[in-house]
Every structure is written in structure tokens, then in C-alpha cells.
């Protein structure tokens, strides 16, 4: 990292927090009704939407808290333990 980057706003995206995760969310596009409830509830702000279509969960940052799975009214997100890592 060079010093000039310190002056860039929002540069913490260069720091990946995904390694903290002990459980991984699995988003089912079939069950998802794109209600957008999970998007503002994600503490990591890593659930990506484009024009109100849920694109996916950015696992570079997801800490596996499971808040999204719990707020989803359609059970479209399922948390799975990372046993195989």
C-alpha cells in the first residue's frame, strides 16, 4: 500500500474481512423475491443489488453473522457451517 491511498475515502474495501467467517450464507435466486430487506440489514454492507435485483453476497467481506438469513421473509438465504475449509 502506498501512502497516497490513505487519503482515499472508503479504502477499507481493500481490507477483506471474509476470513472471519465461520458460517457462509447461501442465497437462492429461486426463492428470492428481491424485497431488499436483507440489503440495509447487512452490517458489512456487502449484499449487492442492482436496480433492485439482488446480485449476491460479497464473501470478501461477509463475517457470517446470519442477520440476512434471519430477516429474509422468504428463507432465501441459508447459513452453512464452513466445515470443509
Amino acid at each position, binding site marked *: 500500500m502506498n501512502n497516497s491511498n490513505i487519503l482515499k475515502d472508503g479504502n477499507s474495501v481493500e481490507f*477483506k*474481512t471474509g476470513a472471519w467467517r465461520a458460517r457462509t450464507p447461501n442465497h437462492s435466486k429461486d426463492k428470492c423475491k428481491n424485497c431488499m430487506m436483507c*440489503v440495509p*440489514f447487512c452490517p458489512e*454492507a456487502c449484499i449487492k*443489488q442492482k436496480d433492485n435485483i439482488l446480485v449476491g453476497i460479497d464473501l470478501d467481506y461477509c463475517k457470517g453473522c446470519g442477520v440476512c*438469513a434471519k430477516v429474509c421473509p422468504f428463507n432465501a438465504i441459508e447459513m452453512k457451517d464452513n466445515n470443509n475449509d
Partner: protein
Amino acid sequence: MPYNLKEVVKKQNRLVSGHRMCAGCGAPVTINAVLRALKEEDNAVVAAATGCLEVSTCIYPYTSWKNVSFIHSAFECASATLSGVETAYNSLKKQGKLSKDKETKFIAFGGDGGTLDIGLQSLSGAMERRHNITYVCYDNGAYMNTGTQRSSSTPHFADTTTSPAGKVTQGKVQPRKDLTEIMVKHNLPYVAQTALFGNLKDIYEKAEKAIYTDGPTYISAFSPCPRGWGYPTEDLAVISKLAVETCFWPLYEIENGVYKVTYKPAKKLPVEEFLKTQKRFKHLFKEENKDLIDEIQKEVDKKWDYLLMMEEVTNKQKED
């Protein structure tokens, strides 16, 4: 424009990924919910008191703050610092050194330690001086950053490392300080208490009102902490909902002295429905501690009745 979740989530977040808050923390959700109420074209200066939020979003050489100017000085100084920034901004604008058509808003975030305890005098001072700022307290009811020490916002009988539940005491001996009411007594144009409730309409609308009301405004936001409260990380929305439905954390606002309870549960749940979800209240469910839950219920009922009474009285006064 009426609140529309699908529209507001299209806005760019001003607190971005890569911060080091714990998994499931309520604070970043609260912060982004508040900042989403900013118009996209408006600038914002964000000041933070020392606390989880500040230490986890500004770890050198990174910052998680985007499209806002962020400033932090000492623990107790969020309001004083932001007062100074706002005054300098007004002066520069008056001198014609800043563009007249660009709007800048001033928002401070503090935890309950940095707000109700350590930052109280600077907050009170800034509010009394009528700075055009919005102060948001994300309230998780203890000093979580240093490992859950009691604050004056810690609820009655909650177990923390400095108010332990054991043989001698049953958690925090004293009831919670009610800063929202203290802020009302500063005669602010807008004061509100909110939580991450439902589709986040409540917090969005209150943040929008606070940020775009002229003069000093204050918001107290319920911000669950899985580590300090002892509950599974996924239960953020569940805990918030129970706090509201039991009236443990009533949602209300005060506009120029007029109270409005913004959510009235159809059926007020007993407070133990909220308490039983968290380890910090576990000791209250021992047979011999049943009267302590009754005491908490009495305090909750008293506050709720007070709010309903104030709503009636102040609205009547307004009509007269």
C-alpha cells in the same frame, strides 16, 4: 416523499465494507440507516466519539467512511469538535470561500459511553449553543469497545463486567439514565428515539427529519451488541423488534416540545420476552429474582404511561 425501502437501498453507502466491527453488530446498520436519509447531492461532515465505531472504521491506513468528511478528536469531544466544524463552515460560507449552492450537513455519532457519560457536557453545550448539528447516539448500553463495562445507559439489573451478577449484586444496581428526556429539556426542535425496526422506515424518517431540521437535533438509536448482550449474531432484528414490542425501547419523537409515539404495539408484550433472549439478564430468571423482573416491568410501564400522557398533553396544548 414517502419512505420506500427499494428506493433508499439504491443509494451509495457512506460507511463501506472492510470495517472491523464484530459480526452481527447493530451499529454499522444504524449508521448507514441514518446516513441513507441524506440527499445524495449533499455533503456531510461526520464526527465520532471514541468507541467501537470510531476505532473499527479508522484503522490506519484505512477508512470505511466514504463520501463524507470524517473527524475524530478526544473521547468526550464529538459534539464540541462538530460545533467547531459547523462554525468554521458558516464563517467560510459567509466570506464567500465556499460554494453557496452545495449543502453540507453535520452529524455526530457516539456510543452510549461517549454520549451519556463521557461526552455529556460537550453534547449539552453544543445543544445549548444551537449549532446546526444532528447528534446520533447508537446505544448498546455499555462500554463494548473495552469489554462490556457498565455505562449510565446500561439497563437496570444488566450483567456487565463492572456490574456483575453474583452473590452480592444482581447486575447493575441503578436504573438507566434517560438522556432522550434530558435532550428534550434542552428545548431542541427535534428529538427522537428509534430502533432497527421493521423495514427501517422509523429510523429513516427520524434521521431525515433530524438532519433537515434547522438547529440542534438528537436521536437515540437502539443498537444491539451480540458480544456484550450475549445473543446469537443473527438475532439483530429479532432483539430490536422485541425491545419495541415490549416497550422496553419505545419509539417516539418530540417536535418543538410536542410528543408523538411513533409505534404503539397492538399487544404490549411482557418485558421478560425481551430479557430472556440475552445472557446479560439470565440471572433474573432464577426463582429468587422474580421480583427484579417485576421491577423492570414497572419501570417500563411507567415510562410508557408517561409517554402516552405527554403525547396527549402536549398535543392538546398545541391545539389550544
